[in-house]
């Protein structure tokens, strides 16, 4: 046989430890991706209620599959690779599952389940009846692309799923039947296409200078190039292109202009998913690229992290200032997302020390922001669908359960101890202290200013919502019409927030373990 004569072929056919399938659990990530994709296709043929049930079934199943993968991975203590096809990478496609990936996939499935559950009433209200099926179809494909982006080990697969993610995210914004969502979608789509173009040309140049599309092989090639100093400039340009492209898509500060419209106008379930998950998927991809494509040393030498650090600091302050100026509840929460994304980039900008805090912030924000958006939807119900603060006076007294949820989310965003947001700020601050003096000072000052600014807009908002007026003398616990799915999802979100806040050390341990598998 000719194949055995080729030295490189043997290397990959010889099953290394990571390639061997020894446990049935190793099939679970693959099953969750293909199951989501297949259910997404089937959704086109069924009625809205059936599609809804299918989506919830799939999300629940993916949560359980992800959880068992996570437990297996922690027990295994190492990552494993699942070959998508008969031929191992670099010839075929493969997915790579470590602790961090499994954790994120599990968390994302749960967040998506809860956000859809909390926004269910609004979905059936805001989307035209004949288009509700398509809403669930888009959600299903969105979820597929999210987990595929988390698990993928190949740059071009990542590009394909980035595009699926963009398309479905735009579609779920536009599915709310109103004129303004069309404008929001156009702006979102335009910015996303700019980002995609930059990412694609980055991939092309990287492929040209490294000759590979698989993340590990690119890293080998890039490390060799960095040592010899060959193609130094193209490499730096590629790093910048990826940072800008993914920055545009994840609404990093100067590129955030599309976010308030898209997240502020869409139906509350969509807003929750968009801000909680879609933005994070791109950041996870960026973290993966930093560790697994370029390698930390090359990234540190290129100083791109400093740019991300500065932009993160700007996002934290300017996002908050914009939030203070908005008179619209959902828009305020959307601007708050800009600030919170700034925290993640601050963590990334701190280098290896801040990466764990950044990942923790991804989790915390994914669990807090959907809760805020869903409760905002519940308040809007009490104010005849208006998002303006002047119509929302006392809304929390009409729906106390949503009020409690909003308060928990707001306190978490401000960073009061016991709530999840505090842990992130604490971790970011301790991480900042281990870096250079200048960075530490800037980061600490930014954290303090941002905390104050967060309080400046969340506390007045709480006061407006909880204000006692003439027609809100009596407190109603579950709103004028009890919306059972929302009540349940809000309760679980609140519990999750406290779990993240109090038991954060567990998650930090898991994240650090996952990051060590990256490197």
């Amino acid at each position: 046989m000719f194949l055995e004569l080729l030295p490189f072929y043997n290397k990959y056919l010889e099953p290394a430890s990571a390639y061997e399938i020894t446990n049935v659990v190793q099939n679970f990530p693959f099953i969750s991706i293909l199951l989501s994709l297949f259910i997404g296709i089937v959704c086109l043929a069924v009625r809205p209620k059936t599609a809804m049930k299918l989506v919830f079934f799939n999300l629940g199943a993916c949560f359980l599959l992800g959880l068992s993968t996570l437990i297996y991975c922690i027990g295994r203590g190492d990552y494993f690779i699942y070959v998508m096809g008969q031929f191992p990478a670099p010839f075929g496609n493969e997915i790579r599952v470590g602790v961090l990936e499994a954790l994120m996939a599990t968390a994302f499935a749960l967040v998506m389940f809860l956000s859809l559950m909390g926004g269910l009433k609004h979905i059936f209200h805001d989307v035209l009846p004949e288009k509700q099926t398509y809403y669930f179809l888009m959600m299903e494909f969105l979820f597929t692309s999210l987990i595929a982006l988390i698990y993928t080990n190949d740059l071009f697969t990542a590009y394909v799923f980035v595009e699926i993610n963009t398309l479905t995210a735009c579609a779920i914004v536009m599915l709310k039947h109103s004129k303004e969502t069309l404008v929001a979608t156009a702006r979102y789509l335009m910015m996303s296409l700019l980002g995609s173009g930059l990412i694609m040309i980055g991939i092309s140049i990287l492929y040209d200078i490294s000759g590979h599309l698989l993340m590990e092989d690119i890293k080998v090639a890039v490390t060799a190039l960095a040592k010899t100093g060959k193609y130094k400039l193209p490499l730096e340009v590629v790093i910048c292109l990826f940072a800008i492209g993914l920055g545009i898509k994840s609404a990093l500060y100067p590129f955030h202009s599309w976010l308030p419209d898209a997240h502020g106008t869409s139906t509350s379930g969509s807003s929750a998913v968009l801000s909680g998950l879609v933005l994070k998927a791109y950041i996870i991809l960026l973290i993966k690229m930093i560790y697994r494509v370029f390698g930390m040393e090359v990234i540190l030498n290129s100083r791109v992290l400093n740019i991300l650090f500065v932009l993160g600091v700007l996002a934290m302050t300017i996002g908050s200032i914009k939030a203070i100026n908005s008179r619209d509840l959902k828009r305020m929460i959307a601007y708050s997302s800009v600030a919170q994304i700034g925290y993640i980039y601050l963590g990334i900008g701190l280098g290896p020390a801040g990466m764990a805090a950044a990942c923790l912030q991804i989790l915390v924000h994914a669990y807090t922001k959907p809760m805020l958006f869903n409760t905002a939807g519940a308040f809007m119900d009490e104010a005849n669908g208006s998002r303006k603060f002047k119509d929302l006076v006392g809304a929390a007294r009409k729906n106390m359960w949503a009020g409690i949820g909003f308060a928990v989310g707001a306190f978490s965003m401000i960073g009061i101890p016991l709530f999840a947001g505090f842990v992130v700020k604490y971790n970011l601050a301790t991480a900042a202290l281990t870096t250079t003096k200048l960075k530490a000072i800037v980061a600490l000052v930014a954290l303090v200013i941002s905390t104050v600014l967060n309080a400046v807009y969340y506390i007045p908002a709480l006061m407006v919502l909880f204000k006692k007026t003439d027609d809100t003398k009596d407190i109603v616990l579950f709103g004028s019409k009890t919306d059972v799915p929302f009540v349940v999802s809000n309760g679980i979100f609140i519990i999750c927030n406290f779990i993240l806040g109090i038991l954060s050390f567990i998650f930090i341990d898991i994240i650090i373990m996952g990051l060590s598998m990256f490197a």
Partner: protein
Amino acid sequence: MINVVESLKNFVNGTQLIESKNETEIKDSTVVKKHHETSFTERVTALIEKGESKAARSAYTVVAVIMAIIIIGCLIYTVSFLPHFGGADNPANSSEVVRAYIENGIHDTGATNFVAGMILNYRAFDTLGESSVLFIAATAVIILLFRHKTKEEEKAESVEEEFYEDKHDVILRHGALILVPVTLMFGLYVLFNGHLSPGGGFSGGTIMGAALILYNLAFGDKSTKKFFNYNINKVVKIIALGFYALSQAYAFYVGANHLPSIISNGVAGTILSSGLILPLNVCVGFEVACTMFGFYSLFDREEI
């Protein structure tokens, strides 16, 4: 920063916030404010946020132009450092992956077209995602443009259509009568020979879609609907992509677990060969044809 201070004040005696907000709302809607009545930050935010002022717009333009020029300048400068065009020793062209695709391609996949073997066997997961993009886009266009009609509307339209039906051009009809079968045949040829020659699902599907569009243009909506309507379009797409997903799920599962596969590669170079590539090409082709016709039909008259 003035707004920040204001908000802080409001925070101290929280009730004022609502009233002051109400006041500003009224101010906005009534008369044009005099210059000294607005605070500096209000003016600046009005300038920037509403995007109506010339200054803000030209500032945005200038910044955008500078950014674009910087990006393009950097890229052009980068290009001059890249490996030379057409070189066989470039990292991308001399990598082990390329060598394996060409030298082992026929052994591994049974396809004499290495590109087909690559996209539908080695890297089938990417192509699955790619077909999903097309599926999603078709659905998104349906969401945006498809008009769900009541029965009365449908009746009224069919009457209208009968009235216009006869006005289709004679030359167009006779030309189409010759061209449509030939085009369809050519599309099917490209589709079924995807693993042997240039072509495959995407190109063949597009050609078939073009044939359908030509038929529709020449013979009108009613005769097209006899064999191709919204439901058939939907069913074909679901079956095609569903088969793709299921067969790939099987192939991935078998491949990853090192199990024996029931799919044989056949004799390379013949039409019934190369394992899953032929059926996948057919699936992709039908999906693309449906999508292309769907795009045309939706943009033309908001239905399929």
